[in-house]
């Protein structure tokens, strides 16, 4: 069974164990957040919708560049388990380990719209959740 959520222009389809916990997080600016009841990490989404102006024609290379830039600024270290998808939904993903955390980062685009998706959990606690997240990211659509 799957749930479907819309966040801005982003349509996210997730297996039932992954639930929207956005409102239960006591933080001033919480992005749309999914987590499992018995999970360890949080999958979070940021979306940018193309409105007008020059079409950005976001390429996979651009997404790579954005991800590397992001990882650098956050001092996430070197990426591993990188993935690239150049289909209808372009995805550049990679995992990072800091001293405390495991972070997986995806930049997705359909050419015009862009989304940043992150999964964060304690280092060594990731288990199989990143696999679930990969599948959720692969099913993301822009509305």
């Amino acid at each position, binding site marked *: 069974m799957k749930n479907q*959520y819309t966040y*801005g222009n982003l349509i996210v*389809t997730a297996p039932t164990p992954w639930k929207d*916990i956005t409102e239960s997080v006591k933080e001033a600016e919480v992005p749309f957040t999914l987590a*499992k009841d018995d999970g360890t*990490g949080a999958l979070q989404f940021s979306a*940018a919708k193309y409105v007008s102006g020059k079409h950005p024609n976001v390429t996979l290379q651009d997404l790579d560049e954005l991800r590397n830039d*992001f990882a650098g600024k956050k001092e996430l270290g*070197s990426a591993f388990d990188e993935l690239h998808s150049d289909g209808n939904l372009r995805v550049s993903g990679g995992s990072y380990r800091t001293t405390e955390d495991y972070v997986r980062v995806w930049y997705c685009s359909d050419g015009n719209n862009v989304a*940043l998706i992150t999964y964060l959990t304690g280092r060594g606690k990731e288990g199989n959740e990143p696999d679930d997240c990969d599948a959720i990211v692969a099913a993301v659509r822009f509305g």
Partner: protein
Amino acid sequence: MKSSITSSPAPRAIKASHSSGQPNGAQGTGTHAGEKEPLSAYGPQIAQTALLSVGLSTRDLKGTRMSTLEYAEVVSIIFTKATNQAIMLGTEPRHVLSTSLLRTSLLHDKRFRQVPMSEATPGDIILESTGYQASGYAGIVVDHGRIVSMGRAGIVQDNSSLLEIQSTRQSMALFRYVGVQRRPTYPLANAGYNDNEPRLPKGQPGGGQWTSGSLGIARGTRQSVYDSRKKARHCAGDGIVDDEDSEPGFREEKDKERAVDNFHEPTQLEQEQRDNDAQAERKAKQIIEDRAAEAKGQTPARKPPSIFERIRQAFGLSPEEQQKKDNAPEPSQQKPTERSNVNADRKSGGRGSANENTKNASVKGSSLHSDKPGNLPDQLRDMYPDTNLKFTKPGTRGQDVKVVGGTHPSEYPDSNWEPGVDHGDFKPDTRGGTKAFNRDKQTKWVEPTQKLPYDPNTGKLK
């Protein structure tokens, strides 16, 4: 943002602060207590390149389009430009993004020496790393104690000094590139060497070892070695053809040279080549094992798919997989067994709740998404300045649920869900909840939406 190149001040020539000698000369051994660290012949070159980069927008540095690079990345790019070496072996210059990782790498890299701050000379790399999510610092020392580093607005600058940096930042470390280390040669190394003693060629079983002395084998071996070496040299195009009479066999000097050549730390290219070779070898082994197993009538033992294979499967990267994915039914066309989330939520008693682990992860992860420098909005505004993008505000989202297939909720007995309404939103069954629902309906959603009231005390749907 347009590329910007400010007028760069004329670079000053860097005085070579070392006396003379070859770049690698006599630097192979460590220094003793009380001795100063050896000066690097590369220093002036690195410093000169750093000064030549002053005034450049980091966007103009080859290999990137982003205008705000990391300190480490700028140092890495300048270093590679000066030495043609990767500052972190096996890592592309533009992928060196973390000062803490760079510092760790240099500490373990034999090409670099950590030197006291008091001995800073042009070309030395200064690093500060204060750990995860803290802003580290990296720069290159140039003349008069000045430092070239990434400046504000993405322009490479030389307006900071060692004194200033030391007084304002903690945990600074200085590294000197001393180049490829070579093993010192010793004059007595040839003692006992006999040119007539035969050795087996490299690439054959026992290659490089002295033979038992069987003349026939040895001569044949030596001849084949000679032939192959001649061929190799011919192929290499160095134009050197050994005279048959002066055929040197495997001279120890040659071996020593080779040993010395092999001793240096692998360059990035060499490392990649080694990795490729190792991968090819593993593949070949696997094929051989599979064929042997097939010959015995066994099914080849396969390893479980790697993480990459699993991810590729998940993303359908191959053309066939991609086509399959493209032809897959949309969520709304999913087969009836995959019921909508509404049913799932009914069964599980309402909206998702978070445990402490996921709550903590959410709080930490939220910092990666806010509209702050370096995050998505900032990145996109920078990368696509001529495009108007709307960023969804954190906390803003659509309805909680959407019917994506299966039996429509309105079809269930006693259901009060309106037919044709595919969206639903959970709200507490209170006056406030109703008010919030009506407000959201007016301001947030365009689709008809069903209110899904729940008991605020038990979380159960009504």
